[in-house]
């Protein structure tokens, strides 16, 4: 709401209007500052993204070519060893990360757009529209997603990363939509919406300018959630052999490791490297997600605040007891 009032009076307050992007940056910095889990998660995520973006240009070996004997142990030449097919695992990890992270982010974007559209429509318009959309949400929520994805992928036959991103994006929106809906319903009751309605602002403007900015933290949380979920499920689908095994991703790395029995034949690095990477990236995103959750729901916050409160409480108790005795 403050953003809105400021943008209308921009001429009267030029310095503040100029500093807006900086304020945004400072807000983001404040989110990470002093929040250890957010910093660890964000740092790890940034590291992985940068490595997968620029890393593939610097790798010495092609990810999909035989460059050495099968199952060479990790050494200076092949940092993470080679696969059963004699391919370089380190190079596969960086190249595969590009594909896997792209799928995750595309799926997250698709799902977030759908969840905003559905959630705001249901929450703002209410009535019949809300009933139908809510019903659709509940039905999709109650269906087990992964078996559904597996069967869809099976009918489509060895699907590529783009199709996987589409499938996950289309099936994973209800979680986000549900929180967006309930938050929209809460915001709808606030006075500034009523005043905007009384001023005769059109509905699209109310939704985009008045409501949407207040949903940012919730939308960000559900975006990170879906990206995490998509990364894990993409790997899962490809591990089962439902993806296109010729494209190098973290999921197909698992698939090849499983189908060449890497664990049994002693080439543990072929399996453990992608598995641990997926777990680490998932964990990093879980930390970011949790921190966003704590910011938007301060009740869940523990740590220093609770400690300070306890200390105060103890002091008061001690004083009281001192007073009575």
């Amino acid at each position, binding site marked *: 709401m403050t953003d809105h009032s400021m943008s209308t009076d921009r001429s009267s307050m030029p310095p503040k209007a100029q500093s807006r992007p900086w304020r945004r940056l400072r807000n983001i910095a404040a989110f990470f500052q002093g929040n250890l889990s957010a910093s660890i998660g964000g740092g790890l995520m940034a590291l992985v993204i940068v490595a997968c973006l620029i890393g593939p240009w610097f790798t010495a070996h092609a990810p999909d070519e035989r460059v050495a004997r099968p199952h060479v142990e990790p050494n200076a030449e092949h940092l993470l060893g080679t696969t059963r097919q004699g391919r370089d695992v380190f190079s596969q990890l960086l190249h595969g990360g590009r594909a896997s992270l792209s799928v995750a982010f595309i799926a997250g974007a698709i799902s977030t757009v759908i969840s905003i559209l559905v959630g705001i429509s249901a929450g703002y318009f209410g009535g019949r529209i809300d009933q139908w959309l809510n019903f659709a949400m509940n039905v999709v929520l109650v269906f087990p997603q992964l078996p559904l994805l597996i069967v869809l992928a*099976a009918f489509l036959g060895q699907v590529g990363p783009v199709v996987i991103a589409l499938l996950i994006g289309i099936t994973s929106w209800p979680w986000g939509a549900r929180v967006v809906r309930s938050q929209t319903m809460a915001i709808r009751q606030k006075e500034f919406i009523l005043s905007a309605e009384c001023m005769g602002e059109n509905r699209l403007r109310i939704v985009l300018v008045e409501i949407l900015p207040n949903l940012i933290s919730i939308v960000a949380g559900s975006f990170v959630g879906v990206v995490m979920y998509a990364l894990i499920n993409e790997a*899962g689908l490809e591990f089962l052999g439902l993806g296109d095994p010729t494209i190098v991703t973290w999921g197909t790395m698992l698939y090849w490791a499983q189908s060449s029995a890497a664990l049994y034949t002693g080439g543990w690095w072929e399996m453990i490297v992608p598995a641990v990477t997926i777990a680490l990236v998932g964990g990093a995103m879980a930390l970011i997600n949790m921190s966003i959750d704590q910011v938007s729901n301060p009740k869940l916050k*523990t740590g220093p605040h609770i400690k300070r409160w306890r200390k105060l409480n103890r002091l008061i108790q001690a004083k009281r007891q001192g007073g009575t005795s």
Partner: protein
Amino acid sequence: MRYITSRFLFYFVAFLIAISFNFLLPRIMPGDPVDALFAGAAGQLDPSQMDAIRAMYGFSDGPMWLQYLQYVKSVFTGDLGPSVLMYPTDVTTVLGFTFPWTLFLIGLGVSTAIILGLILGTIAAYKRGNWFASLFPPMAAVLSSMPAVVTALLVFYIFGLKLQWFPMSYAADPSLEPGWSAEYVGSVAHHAVLPLLVIVLVSLAQWVMTMRNAMINVLGEDIITMAEAKGLSQTRIMLRYASRNAVLPVVTSVAMGLGFAVAGQIFIEIVFNYPGVGNTLLKAINARDYPLVQALLLLIVAFVLIGNFIADLTYLWLDPRLRK
């Protein structure tokens, strides 16, 4: 009563939607599923048998709505025709000998995880403020984000392959005669340890966090202050006032939890080669046994819907406000 009826109707409609999805899937997909189906069975079946199967799966020449009604009827009568993968065994029979294993693992695993989660979540909510409690939420977040595939593979590698403490494949020693003999039951238990461990590891953190958050919310409410003011004992407050209210959001999240558990179960069964629904699903997909694939999907959906309905009944039992 109205609550139960409306919930039941919702699940019934959801199941009908699943059936319709199943019906439409082979008909809207590119390529002819009937051809794909019979390509998998080539050499095993002669043309007259193929026509019989074609009719049995509802790929008759009648109008769409008639095919649809036939399909719905065949689902509810359990007459789903023979499986291609295990021809000439009926699809329903295949479900009959795979489903009990899945039900056994998932039932035991999820209930263990929920009970442990409730206990640990309560403790975590009460012990806020010390170093463990402030470390706990990020730990739980990271643990619950561990993909089931990864956890299953790691457990398989460490406890199965490296330490060789537990068997890595099958639900029981194949050389034993199935039955209620002590030896067979012991073998089943021995084989179930690692899969169960994975189920609990994958889902425990989520239950602990749900319970902890719910508990924190309840502990801030007036009823707790009131109970403390009345001088009730801490255990009584914890069990009869706080837990009873805090457990409600946990029951609600069973819906999502079951979906995740089923997803995890598929990977667990494949990694440990366990003869359940998930393992059979992948085998059916690889054999292009679409009737079996669809039947398994319906079975999984029905299982999750029934689980949700049971959760709703539990909710009703815990929350007297709904009993009208």
